[in-house]
């Protein structure tokens, strides 16, 4: 789960990480009022759940009233990577001398939390990682002792020469680590962390992502969630036990298991077809799921044929077959369907499907070929 910059910085502020004075605004009037309060110059920043806001023109410095109104007008309503800007953060402009990057994330290979720090702050860190990977210092944190003060100092000494800044930095890094652990984050990033003109550290931007598996114990974080339209469909599907991602092709796929669902998409492409979606019905044996899944598939008007690919484990093929029968009874389906059932209770499932005129095949390769053929014949 992702949150906005202003939300991340509120969390930082709760942990006494210094952030700039700033006010969240929803209209040009709001922005003017905020600037009156903060005093010009200010920075107006688009709040969307996408990166690259600066490059897209979503961050503007305003030194005068005119510039302020222009900036607010331009940014509010702007489209950034498919997100419409509905709110902006008006922040007091801070003069600074240096920019740094610091971030925490989980590393799959060391199975640990890792602290990253770089003197190449203020630019997209992915670029630094690609062009100059040695400029990013990485510190693996021992989960049993956490980020110790000495280790926080080690990191700080990589970035700062002045002992006063090293101490401030080490303190800030320990706080950032606590934020990360307390909120079950998967990413906590400050970019840039700056040395202000008066010689202190401040977080000028903030980014946090959270582990979806831990949201059950993070009520305050969950309250911050603002799902996009696509995510709403995905969340709705998830509530029904389905995992769904819409694609652009014409062959609807219904599969059990994420790996097999991906392999099903792959094989359709290999045989020259285009999948209309990724759909994993998961590992339970509830016929209702098949009906829900069929509804999702057929809501997409591009779908010209449906390929059902089930390898029974926990999922029982006879239950899937029952679900298909109920779906056929309840819905007016005039799109051809090819079914492949293997594994647990496959014979029983195929027996149930004999009553229908559905095409059944023995392997996923055959199913893909048949689905492509049927899709090409459907008008």
């Amino acid at each position, binding site marked *: 789960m992702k949150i906005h910059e202003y939300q991340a910085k509120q969390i930082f502020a709760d942990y006494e990480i210094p952030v700039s004075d700033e006010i969240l605004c929803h209209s040009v009037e709001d922005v003017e009022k905020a600037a009156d309060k903060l005093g010009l110059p200010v920075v107006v920043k688009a709040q969307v759940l996408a990166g690259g806001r600066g490059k897209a023109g979503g961050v503007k410095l305003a030194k005068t009233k005119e510039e302020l109104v222009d900036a607010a007008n331009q940014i509010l309503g702007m489209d950034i990577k498919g997100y419409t800007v509905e709110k902006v953060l008006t922040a007091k402009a801070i003069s600074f001398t240096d920019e740094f990057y610091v971030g925490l994330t989980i590393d799959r290979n060391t199975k640990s939390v890792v602290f990253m720090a770089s003197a190449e702050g203020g630019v997209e860190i992915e670029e630094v990682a690609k062009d100059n990977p040695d400029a990013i210092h990485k510190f693996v944190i021992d989960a049993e002792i956490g980020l110790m003060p000495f280790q926080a100092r080690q990191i700080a000494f990589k970035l700062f020469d002045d002992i006063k800044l090293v101490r401030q930095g080490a303190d800030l890094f320990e706080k950032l680590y606590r934020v990360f652990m307390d909120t079950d984050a998967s990413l906590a990033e400050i970019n840039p962390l700056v040395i202000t003109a008066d010689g202190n550290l401040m977080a000028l931007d903030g980014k946090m992502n959270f582990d979806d598996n831990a949201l059950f114990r993070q009520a305050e974080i969950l309250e911050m969630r603002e799902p996009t339209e696509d995510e709403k469909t995905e969340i709705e599907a998830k509530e029904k036990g389905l995992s769904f991602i819409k694609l652009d092709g014409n062959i609807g796929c219904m599969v059990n298991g994420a790996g097999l669902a*991906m392999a099903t998409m792959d094989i359709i*492409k290999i045989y020259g077809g285009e999948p209309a979606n990724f759909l994993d019905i998961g590992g339970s044996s509830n016929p209702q799921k098949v009906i829900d899944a069929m509804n999702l598939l057929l809501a997409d008007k591009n779908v010209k044929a449906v390929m059902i690919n089930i390898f029974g484990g926990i999922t029982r093929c006879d239950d899937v077959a029952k679900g298909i029968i109920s779906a056929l009874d309840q819905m007016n389906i005039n799109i051809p369907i090819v079914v492949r059932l293997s594994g647990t209770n496959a014979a029983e499932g195929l027996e149930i499907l004999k009553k229908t005129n559905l095409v059944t095949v023995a392997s996923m390769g055959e199913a893909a070929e048949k689905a492509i053929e049927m899709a090409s014949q459907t008008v």
Partner: protein
Amino acid sequence: MSILINSDTRLIVQGITGRDGSFHAQKMKEYGTNVVGGVSPGKGGQKVGDIPVFNTVKDAVAATKANASIIFVPPKFAADAVYEASEAGVELVITITEGLPTLDMVKLMPYLKKNGTKLIGPNCPGLVTPGEALVGILPGSIFKQGNVGLMSRSGTLTYEMVNQLTTNGLGQSTCVGIGGDPVAGLYYEELLEMFQNDPQTEAIVLIGEIGGDAEERAAQYIKEKVTKPVVAFIAGQTAPPGKRMGHAGAIISSGSGTAAEKIKAFEEAGVPVARKPAEIPVLIQERLGK
């Protein structure tokens, strides 16, 4: 021989009185797995079928000399269940539960290392040594005893691959589902080492998927340490890049986790990559000269 489990495995089931736990305890027993007990706090003294239930893992181990445990408890309590098994001296813990918080796993790892506990999962289908023991939720009927070792991040795709092997006359030494979570227990490198050292295993199938760089690391390991033939499959060759991981993770692994990069890494390590599941048995037969 085989790896990790065999007919000497003495298994307990944590969460045995739950719906999934009781169902699969019976299924594993039917397969021939030596299921010696179950754990469910407050239900000690009861039985599930003819399997005795204990209140704690410690009690279960004391009474049954269990050396492996499979966990079916809900995600909130799953990490605690792994600690409990490790503390009681269980050598091998298999966690089926899906949805464990990642930081629970991160905090758990040093404790397991200290106790020498081997973990498989979470969010995995378990493992099978055909003809000897099945520990997990896999459909037992598709496996056949033989010489191919298999490891996979996926569940049902594993069944698909095993089915391809079995119907083409290629039996398996052990098949391990390592699970789909970002932080998990035994992974490719540890399993490759075990298969390399297992006299029964003659060839190895590695089934990966998009995300992370574990496959690239496995390719490097194979190049350096594995002399047995390895063939691979990567799911998600056509997955849209829209569903990308948090970018900081990609920085650490200095790769974007695409199928193309993984396939390239394997091919550079001399590991052929099947484009379709049906090609896996063909590639193995070629490599084994059968």
